[in-house]
């Protein structure tokens, strides 16, 4: 996970060991600080894996509950944000396995802060819609590989799929997205 794209993200600084200890001891106010600081990161991961708001919110909440429960197990070898990112990913992937997906018209997430164009002719709404429209089998591995930069073997581990299958899914996801973005640019 060391070279993942998301680490470049202007992630909030890790909570101080004292704050973490207070949260781990069950102090609600200390935990609220963590939720408020990391809600964008956790929600973004859930939305990108699941592709809709309702499931993303459930999974993001689940990730924070897992975080709360396992705070005493958190060791500071990994940065807190790395640890929480991993919890958010597994919560989102578990939510997808439960097949709780509620169909809804793709509604574009609200970008926190200024919405910059991601590429010429491609804005945030376009990419969000293109990803959400991908078949689920393609979306999750493609998001993990190209949005978050995870190596294939980790994606296989996280999704419980064979390595070869994961690669094929990513290749297909890329192909579908490439054609979609070409069509968007030409539109």
């Amino acid at each position, binding site marked *: 996970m060391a070279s993942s794209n998301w680490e470049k993200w202007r992630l909030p600084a890790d909570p101080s060991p004292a704050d973490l200890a207070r949260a781990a001891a069950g102090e609600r106010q200390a935990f609220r600080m963590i*939720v408020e600081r990391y809600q964008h990161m956790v*929600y973004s991961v859930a939305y*990108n894996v699941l592709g809709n708001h309702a499931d993303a919110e459930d999974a993001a909440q689940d990730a924070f509950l897992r975080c709360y429960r396992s705070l005493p197990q958190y060791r500071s070898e990994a940065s807190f944000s790395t640890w929480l990112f991993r919890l958010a990913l597994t919560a989102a992937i578990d939510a997808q396995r439960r097949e709780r997906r509620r169909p809804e018209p793709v509604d574009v997430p609200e970008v926190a802060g200024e919405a910059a164009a991601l590429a010429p002719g491609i804005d945030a709404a376009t990419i969000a819609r293109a990803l959400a429209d991908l078949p689920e089998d393609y979306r999750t591995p493609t998001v993990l590989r190209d949005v978050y930069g995870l190596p294939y073997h980790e994606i296989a581990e996280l999704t419980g799929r064979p390595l070869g299958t994961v690669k094929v899914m990513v290749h297909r996801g890329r192909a579908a997205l490439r054609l979609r973005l070409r069509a968007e640019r030409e539109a």
Partner: protein
Amino acid sequence: MDCSGVRALMNRYIDGELGYLETAEFQRHLAFCPDCSLEFRELSALRGTLAAWGDVPLAPPAGFANRVMTAVATEPLPGSPRPLADVVSDVLEWLDQSLGRVRLPGGRTMPVKNLLGWAIALVAVVIGFGRRRGQDQAKTRVSRAAGAARR
């Protein structure tokens, strides 16, 4: 290497999975083939766009943090042993996910874990019945023996 060969390698090239010779052949083809080179540029641009998307923080729905904190309020303190009911329901959910469902006649489906439950109950009943019969037979044998002794 022809166009279809090059396209088959494109993803592996992007992922850095090609060996030295394949890489050289791939690059040589791209240098003179406008079609493949366009596809390659689009694919590379796509990866850049997706990586940039990963840096875009998305806003959770309004009131999200409050809802999380409401859920947290019903949780036991971190690290305390989990209530047995939660553990049982987690195990059942895990069984549900890993076993899936079976199709019943009439197009309906039933979780495999339910079938397992019925099977376990049936086995328990059969064992119970068998033991009872065994005890009854033993009693009969004892009373027969007693009768024979009396004669």
